[in-house]
């Protein structure tokens, strides 16, 4: 890999890892969701610092321009992360729906009880 892109990749990976650590430390990012990010950061750092890894990966995949292999790996992890987001969003929206239904039913129940004279 060319020196410049290697330096850029290393700096970028370290920057990403630092940002993730900082977000977890400040509790802005839950540990549960930080794992896949940390894994991505370390994987990118590993392939950036050890050119042999990327070269052999590139050969296995039939990639002749090595930096492309780096982007392929990054793309793979980002795909996983966005898939995880979709799963989490699906669960959240289901829970959000259930909660708003329960809140609405409870409000109706309270109004009903108040009408029956439970207010006093």
């Amino acid at each position: 890999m060319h020196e410049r892109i290697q330096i850029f990749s290393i700096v970028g990976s370290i920057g990403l890892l630092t940002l993730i650590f900082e977000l977890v430390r400040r509790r802005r990012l839950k540990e549960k969701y930080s794992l896949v990010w940390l894994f991505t950061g370390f994987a990118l750092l590993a392939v950036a610092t050890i050119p042999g890894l990327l070269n052999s990966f590139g050969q296995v995949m039939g990639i002749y321009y090595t930096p492309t292999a780096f982007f392929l790996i990054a793309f793979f992890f980002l795909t996983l992360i966005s898939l995880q987001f979709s799963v989490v969003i699906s669960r959240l929206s289901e829970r959000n729906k259930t909660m708003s239904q329960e809140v609405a039913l409870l409000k109706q129940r309270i109004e009903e009880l108040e009408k029956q004279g439970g207010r006093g």
Partner: protein
Amino acid sequence: MRLLAIIPAYNEEATVGRVVAEIHSAMPDADVVVINDGSADSTASAAAASGAAVVNMPFNLGIGGAVQAGYRYAEQGGYDIAVQVDGDGQHDPSEMSAIAGPIMAGEADIVVGSRFLGRSGAAGFKSTRMRRIGISLFARVLSAMTGHRLTDPTSGFRACGRKTIRLFAREYPDDYPEVESLLLAHLAGFRIAEEPVKMRARGGGHSSITPIKSVYYMVKVMMVLFIWLVRKKPEREVWDA
């Protein structure tokens, strides 16, 4: 048997009161709950004035979420039968007892009012041509998938028994709930039946589906239907108490 009419309503101030009044006169023993799905108009006060119980959703959940709130209400209230009636006046409450009939007789777990079945086939409001093509396409696919003869799967005029109420209170589809809920009921092993009904042109409001979007809608529903082919069955504990 205790019967609940569930009326999902989104901006139906012009018609919802009349629907509730018609249900009261057609079935005096039935309770009525209006699920006001975050309407911007005075649906809530119109429904309350008509004497129905009103559940006000905190924001617009969409038809699936609103109807499910109705099934939760039915389950928590211990009702034996829940009949879904649209708030726009297109369903005739005098036909509620016919739809609830097979449930009371123990012959079906969910009954759909069909505007294309039997004697009603000749009269009544049948929707636009484009819409009818879509409906008959869904009907054929659903009939093949479920093994029941279904002619009007997009009809929101339907009755459910206890088991179905319990299932729908816990799991109900969001996107195309009329069609998908039939597949959910089928996966649970429920008996699905249809009863002929006449539908009226809607009394107010407007359809949620514009003509331009019809084709796109059909494609999306077909894709969703095929996803159901690989869905896991709902756990028996969900509906079997």
